[in-house]
């Protein structure tokens, strides 16, 4: 009977320790992160300056040149380069990542997000096919914080804006890529949050 009581007491202690372990695990693992897909529609006016699918742009600055050997080179490429929009921006309407933390996590600094974009055609590209890709030439991010009275982060989320170079694109439609985001406190050399 004593043995049974001791065994029962031992088992109860084990149960308590396990419960405590779970409780402490839950208490430490307050940081929660989630992500959303990034979608945006580039408009025609962003590319052509007009809403129409086809646009005619007349350079009405006088071209005064001399004919030589019955030819004159007007070199329209120079004017197009100064005018044509090869780069456009795409931005998320909402946050694409969100981090929630508790007071015990003690996140008092800034959340630094490290972004990596991959496609079948290589890094920092999004593609509609193997022959039509858009290069992501710049990624800007905007992080919004919510902190408690002690300045500890309880919530942070990030939006991004991509600057896209369309010069290698020749297809209309959906361009896709995979982005991975790692979140760090203050520096990307610090351990990733959201373990």
């Amino acid at each position, binding site marked *: 009977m004593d043995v049974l009581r001791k065994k029962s007491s031992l088992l109860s202690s084990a149960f308590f320790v396990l419960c405590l372990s779970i409780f402490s695990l839950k208490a430490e693992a307050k940081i929660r992160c989630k992500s959303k897909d990034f979608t945006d529609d580039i408009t025609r006016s962003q590319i052509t300056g007009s809403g129409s699918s086809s646009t005619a742009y007349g350079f009405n600055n006088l071209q005064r040149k001399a004919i030589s050997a019955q030819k004159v080179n007007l070199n329209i490429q120079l004017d197009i380069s100064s005018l044509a929009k090869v780069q456009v921006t795409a931005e998320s309407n909402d946050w694409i990542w969100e981090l929630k933390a508790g007071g015990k996590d003690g996140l008092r600094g800034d959340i630094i997000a490290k972004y990596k974009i991959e496609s079948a055609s290589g890094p920092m590209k999004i593609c509609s096919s193997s022959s039509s890709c858009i290069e992501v030439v710049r990624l800007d991010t905007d992080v919004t914080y919510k902190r408690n009275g002690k300045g500890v982060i309880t919530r942070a989320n990030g939006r991004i804006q991509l600057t896209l170079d369309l010069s290698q694109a020749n297809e209309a439609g959906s*361009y896709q890529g995979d982005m991975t985001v790692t979140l760090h406190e203050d520096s990307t050399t610090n351990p990733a949050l959201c*373990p």
Partner: protein
Amino acid sequence: MNILKKSTVVAIFATSFIFASSSKAASLDVNVDVSIPDVLILYAYTDIDLSFAPGEFTKLLDSSCSSEDCASALTATQSGTITSSVVDLDIASDLSATGTSASITLQNSWAVRALGYGTFNASIADKASETAVSNLDITPSTGTPSMVATTGDVSFDIDLTSSDLDDGTVTANYTITVTGS
């Protein structure tokens, strides 16, 4: 025994919880999807004022000339019979071999950029040019467009014998149309 069973269940649950926690990736996955519309943009100069380079115009009339004031010697031996102290060498028949028209090419005078079209087709139509102007043509008339500009030429002939040139100018007007398919 019941307690043992409960503890075992809790232990399994705890173990799976620990495993679940440690197996989470340290990064977030985001699918990036950007939609691009089909667009086609035609660029062209709408006001072009051309002049002939020095010597160019006379060269069109006579290839041996290189300046506006040109003396062109016809060196072929002329033979004839003097009749009543006069001989007709009929120089006009030799001049007929010289140029009467010029074919002018406006290189890189238009361009097209497009997305979402496999082919573009370009055409040109006369729009009340002077009669000295003929044979308007555009090249390339077809191609594969991209966001990098494809540039093209416009060419036309000028009848150098036309009275349109009497005022020293000749005017060509045209409309370029580019369609994508």
